[in-house]
Every structure is written in C-alpha cells, then in structure tokens.
C-alpha cells in the first residue's frame, strides 16, 4: 500500500518540476459503499496540477465510484455512501454549500457518449449559458473553440443546428468532451471514454488530451492498460475496492512495482 506521502515522493522524485507543490486534489481515507456493500476502501492519494492521472483496474474495482465522489455525484445514487475527505484546491468538497458550483468547475466525460437532446451548438453552449453568457457572438466563439479543441469542429461546423444525438458515436463522445471543455474546468474526469468509439477516434481524442494537460488536470479512468501507458504521467491500480499501488506510469510498466499484483494485471495475467 502506498500512502499520500508515497505519491508525493513519486511525484517529486520522478517528474518533480512538472508539478506545483500543492496538489489540486487531496483524497484522505476515502471509502465508498453502496447499501452497505463496500466499493472502495480507505483510499488516500494526491493528484497534481497539470498531470494526467490514470486509474486502471478490472471491473468492480471502484474506479468509477472514485470519480463520482470527486464531484459529489453521489447525490445521484440512492444508497451511495461516501466517507473520508476529498479536497480540491485545499477546500473540502463537502464545504461547498452549492454542489452545482463545484460541479460546474469539473468536466466529466462518461463511458457512453451522452448527447443531450439539444442541437450540437446548444450542447456546447449549455454550460456557458448556465454561467450567464448570453451574447451570441461570445457563445459562438466558445462553441467554435471547444469543438476545435475536441477535434470535432471540421466535421460538424456545417450542421451545428442538427441534434447532437444524431452524430455518430465517436463524434458524440468528442461532443461531450467539447461540452466538458466549455465549462472551462480546472479538472477533467474521464471515465472509460473510449469504450464506445473506434480506435482512430480514440487516438485523436488521446492527442487532444495530451495537449490539454498543459491547461488543466486530467483524471483518466480506463480499462485499457495501454491507454494508461500512452497517456498517464502517474497511474493508480485499483483492485476490488483497494488502491493496490500508485506510481509513475513508466515505472509500473517497466516492472518497478511494490506489489506483484500490479504487474500481474498489467501483463494480463488476470483482470
């Protein structure tokens, strides 16, 4: 088991200068259960600014629950109980009276693309409008910028007024990424975003993510070990609700592990 200090050591030792001293997310003893059944047990870790933090692990290991706890989406699951503390920018997320304001600063991309039943344009303009941006020119600018950054603009610029749900699966997923970016988030949470899209689109999105981490922090949950290898600066391995190991991605993939199970999973001996 690795604790928060271990993570900091890895961060400072391996890729130190990349990170600000203070982590953007500090997770302390986080446990999550559904109707009394434990999904995640005593997870403590830090996530640093401008890194891509990968989380790998087989199904039911608590990866998605972890993400949901970060923006307090537990309100959505009856019976989901969260203990321990999560701080973002040093402030405990439960101290936010208004969880909507908290969520508006965190972009989320779900496993299956969810085009809201609105036009392409309105999908991306949704969050800016919530923030009170009303001027058409300003919205136009945000929509174009976010769609461009999500590598979708060229494909949809002629059909901004058609329904978002009519786009192909891969396009819809990039639309949800554009939508997440329109929040101008500090933090982008991706939950197995490539599960429903083809490899070519996946690679395009991965390129986008690599560019983005200069501006924001990305937490990437993935069931594709190689995706974590390609993208993540550091990777955590969750197994059946336990944080087995956390380390620089390179180290984990080169076999420099503290727990044999990590290598076992990475090499596909179980999963």
């Amino acid at each position, binding site marked *: 088991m690795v604790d928060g200090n271990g993570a900091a050591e890895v961060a400072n030792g391996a890729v130190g200068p990349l990170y600000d001293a203070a982590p953007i997310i500090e997770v302390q003893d986080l446990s999550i259960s559904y109707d009394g059944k434990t999904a995640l047990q005593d997870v403590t870790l830090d996530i640093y600014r401008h890194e891509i933090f990968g989380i790998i692990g087989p199904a039911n290991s608590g990866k998605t629950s972890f993400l949901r706890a970060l923006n307090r989406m537990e309100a959505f699951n009856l019976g989901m109980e969260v203990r321990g503390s999560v701080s973002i920018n040093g402030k405990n997320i439960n101290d936010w009276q208004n969880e*909507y304001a908290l969520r508006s600063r965190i*972009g*989320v991309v779900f496993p299956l693309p969810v085009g809201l039943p609105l036009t392409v344009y309105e999908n991306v303009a*949704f969050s800016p409008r*919530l923030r009170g941006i009303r001027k058409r020119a300003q919205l136009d600018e945000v929509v174009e910028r976010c769609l461009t950054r999500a590598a979708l603009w060229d494909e949809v610029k002629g059909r901004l007024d058609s329904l978002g749900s009519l786009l192909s699966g891969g396009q819809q997923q990039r639309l949800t990424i554009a939508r997440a970016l329109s929040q101008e988030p500090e933090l982008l949470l991706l939950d197995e975003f490539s599960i429903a899209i083809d490899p070519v689109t996946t690679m395009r999105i991965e390129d986008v993510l690599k560019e983005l981490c200069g501006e924001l922090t990305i937490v990437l949950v993935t069931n594709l070990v190689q995706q974590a290898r390609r993208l993540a600066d550091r990777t955590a391995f969750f197994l059946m609700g336990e944080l087995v190991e956390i380390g620089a991605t390179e180290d984990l993939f080169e076999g420099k592990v503290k727990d044999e199970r990590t290598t076992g999973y990475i090499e596909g001996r179980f999963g």
Partner: protein
Amino acid sequence: MAWYVDRAARILVFIGGISAIVFIVGIFVFVTKEGLDFVIGPLNLGEFFTSIAWRPTSNNPTYGALALIVGTASVTGFAMLLSVPLSLGAALFIAEFATGKTRETLKILVEMLAAIPSVVWGFVGMSIMNPLIIQIFDVPVGLTVLNAGLILGLMAAPIMTTIAEDALKAVPDTYREAAEALGATRWEVIVKVVIPASKNGLLAAVLLGVGRGFGETMAVLMASGHAINLPTSPFDSVRALTATIAAELGDTVQGGNHYGSLFALGILLFVVTFVINLTADIVVRGIRKK
C-alpha cells in the same frame, strides 16, 4: 407445434389490432348514419352554429347548438386551466423529486383517483361544491362553469399526471446526470433538458386531458347546472354537448328530428375529437422530425 402456436398467436394479435379500427369505423358509420338524414335534411347549419335556441321539443323546433358548444368549451377550458398546471406539477414532483416510499405512495394514490366513477364526481359537485360556491362567492346558484370546471379538472388531472409522469420517466437518467455534471441545478436540468426531451409525451398528456374533459358527460351534467346559456362569467350555468345527448336521447322517437339532432351533436363531438387528435399527431410528428 411451435409453428402452429406462432400462426395462432399472429392471427389472434391481428384480430386484436384490427378490432380497434373496426370499432372506430363502426361507431363513425353508426353515428353518421343516424344523424346524416337530419343534417342534410331539416337542419339549418347556420342556425346550428350561431343560434343558442336549442328547442327541439317545441311546436316550432329550433336547433341552435351554439350555447352547448360554448358550454362544453368553457367548462373544458376552465378544467384545463386548473388541471394542466396541477398535473404537470404533480408529475414533475413524482418523477423528479419524490423518492422511495413517497413516490410509490403518490403513484398509487393518483392511479386510485383516476378510478373514481364520474357519477361520484358529479355527486361531489352537486352536494359539496354547490353549497360551498354559494357560500364563498355569495351567488344564487352553485352549479356553474366554475363548479363543473373544477370537478372536471380534478377528474382529468390523474390521467394527465400519470401520462406526463411516464413521459418524464422515459427521459434517460444519463441526460440528467450529464446535465448535472455540467453544473446545472435540478431545476435547470428539468427546464432545459428533461421537459424539452419529453415534450411529445407531455403534449400527449395534455391532449388526453382535453379529450377527457370534452367527452365527460355525467359529472358535467350534474355540476354545470344544465341550463342553456351563453356564459359571461364562471358563475353562470351552462349546458354541455355530451350532457344534452345523455339527458335527451331517452325521450326521443327513433328516427325523428329530435333524435337526429342529437346525433348531429354526436357527429360534431366526433369531428372535434378527431381534429384534436389529428392536430396532436401532426404536432408530435413535427417535433419528432426536427
């Protein structure tokens, strides 16, 4: 063996499906046949739509249905004014805010409300609302547009609530989750995502309520005062198309002019209902295409 079962099932299901068409056509043919002779014969259409003199049993009979049309329209309109916001609110609460036991209990109660016979509602209108209205508003008669509208509104509300709630529940939770993840509040999610996504179903619910109001007979007969009158305020008594047919048909001679005139009202009701449904269909298709 499976092949026979399949065959038999197909035929049975086909009969079930086709029977709806058969009955609709049958009713249409029957109503038209009974009323058509009168409509193309003695009936003066100008008088029918512009006069309020409904005197089919007079020595010099006149068949002005305007008061009946306005009566039905005013009572239905008043009922919708009450029941549309009430049922949409109830549906929103049940579908979006209530959880667990509250939700289940409410759903059951609403469905039970829908099962109350209309004569019971009429009874409520006559013996409870009537004196209440007289007392509260200090008017001479309590069997009025207000009374019938309230009763009808309460009657239409459960079915509208149930249909609207189904429509709201049909909106996938992933939409709500995605919108909330974007920082939208519950209310913003409802207004900007859930309602637009379910507007077909909501419209269907409202139109079903309108149809219910239009077609309701017994409660309206009992609560509206059943007086031929062009209402100028909610405190006037009126008479509805349906109530007129129900109250008078038993006293007519089959094939006579009075009999035919009631079937003319029936044709009118049929046409209006048809137009409402057709409009709904066109609107819904229009929304769907976009």
